């Protein structure tokens, strides 16, 4: 009997430790695991290194985690949003370090981390300031940069349906970073709108096989950043 379901978001993030590397899924609000992030704020872990494409909006979700000053470093492709000053303030004050990574390099570094590949070459960012300090190497007459695989201690991911073996399917463009992040994290935690029994997801349509997922939690009616921001919510 295998059952990866936990009963609360608090339980799901119980062992995130100070200094942990935490990948957080989502592209904008699509796929942002807000309930898990809020549980992590409540849990209190600090000095986190967060890997995420964005920095959240308003003062909820990822932006709230940043605002609570739990994140000492963020590895990110696009840390700007129209409606949040949280990250810009932290960045300018030097409280949060930024490692800026091109989006495709970020996605591939995460997949590589999950796939046991410590390094790979990419043409992205050759000749730009983001190549500074990186090995540049020619293959077949073209230049490429060496990029390193990225792993994490934890990943917080939003799925649509999970089974208790950890198999996950996603909703539309909320899929985004979920599958590679599940691969790259020692403990991948997935909140899903529905948790079902093994066999209820057709094995042909599983997107993230259960081997990549350690915990699932049902959040039947998850919040959306845009709704919370529009309602003026600030977490906690």
């Amino acid at each position, binding site marked *: 009997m295998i059952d990866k379901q936990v009963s609360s978001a608090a339980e799901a993030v119980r062992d995130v430790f100070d200094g942990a590397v935490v990948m957080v899924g989502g592209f904008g609000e*699509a796929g942002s695991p807000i309930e898990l992030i809020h549980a992590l704020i409540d849990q209190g872990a600090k000095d986190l290194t967060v890997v995420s494409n964005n920095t959240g909006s308003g003062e909820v979700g990822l932006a709230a985690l940043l605002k609570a000053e739990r994140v000492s470093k963020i590895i990110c492709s*696009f840390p*700007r949003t129209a409606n949040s000053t949280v990250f810009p303030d932290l960045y300018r004050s030097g409280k949060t370090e930024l490692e800026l990574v091109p989006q495709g390099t970020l996605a591939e570094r995460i997949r590589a981390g999950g796939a046991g590949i410590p390094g790979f070459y990419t043409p992205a960012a050759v000749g730009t300031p983001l190549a500074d300090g990186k090995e540049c190497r020619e293959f077949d007459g073209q230049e490429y940069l060496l990029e390193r695989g990225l792993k994490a201690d934890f990943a917080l991911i939003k799925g649509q349906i999970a089974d208790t073996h950890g198999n996950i399917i996603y909703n539309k463009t909320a899929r985004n970073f979920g599958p590679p992040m599940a691969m790259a994290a020692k403990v991948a935690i997935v909140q899903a709108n529905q948790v079902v029994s093994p066999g209820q997801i057709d094995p042909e349509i599983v997107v993230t096989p259960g081997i990549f997922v350690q915990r699932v939690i049902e959040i039947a009616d998850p919040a959306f950043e845009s709704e919370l921001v529009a309602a003026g919510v600030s977490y906690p």
Partner: protein
Amino acid sequence: MTHNAPQTSIIGRSRQEMARRLAQDIANGSYVNLGIGIPELVARFVPEGRTLIYHTENGLLGMGPSPNPGHGDPELINAGKRHVTANPGAAFFHHADSFAMIRGGHIDLCVLGAMQVSKDGDLANWSTGAPDAIPAVGGAMDLVAGVKSVFVITQHCTKGGEPKLVESCTYPLTGRGVIDRIYTDLAVIDITADGFQLVELSPGVDFEYVQERTGADLLPIANT
């Protein structure tokens, strides 16, 4: 430098006309990634009889137009984080697969805005390099490095009248030697081994007018 040149919006193509002009040059069946802003307008002007398939790097191929108001799904968005739809024949996929499409040369065309383009095809479109700016690059560096053809669509000059087509970019680069063609309000210009090659002037615009507003030599259309 043409610091006191007139605003380029007075003559030449409007943003819509630029987008319409660019759309003529996209072959039927192309896989296309459109950047945020003016590039997005291109989709509105695809000539009758051509079908393009739109890729958005956040995980959708076969992106359709915006939904009717009130029918958006916050989990069906484009790279600009706006609500979109999925056409018949669409596919969803994760970010690593999405950028495999980009990096692997599977996208036929991407259309981007620009802050500067150099005569060697260097693009700067992500940062002014200002010390207090929040750096944010998104997928631009991956797109220009991987997509088969990269078109820029932009006003010929900045709002302050500075040329955006330059000898050498002063802003931090997005990519080196990556641009194939530039569509501006004033002209269509190719990047060639010899630099900026005029392809076509906008209606009512003459060569001298464009050259004055271009920060490097512009090669005239050869008499044939």
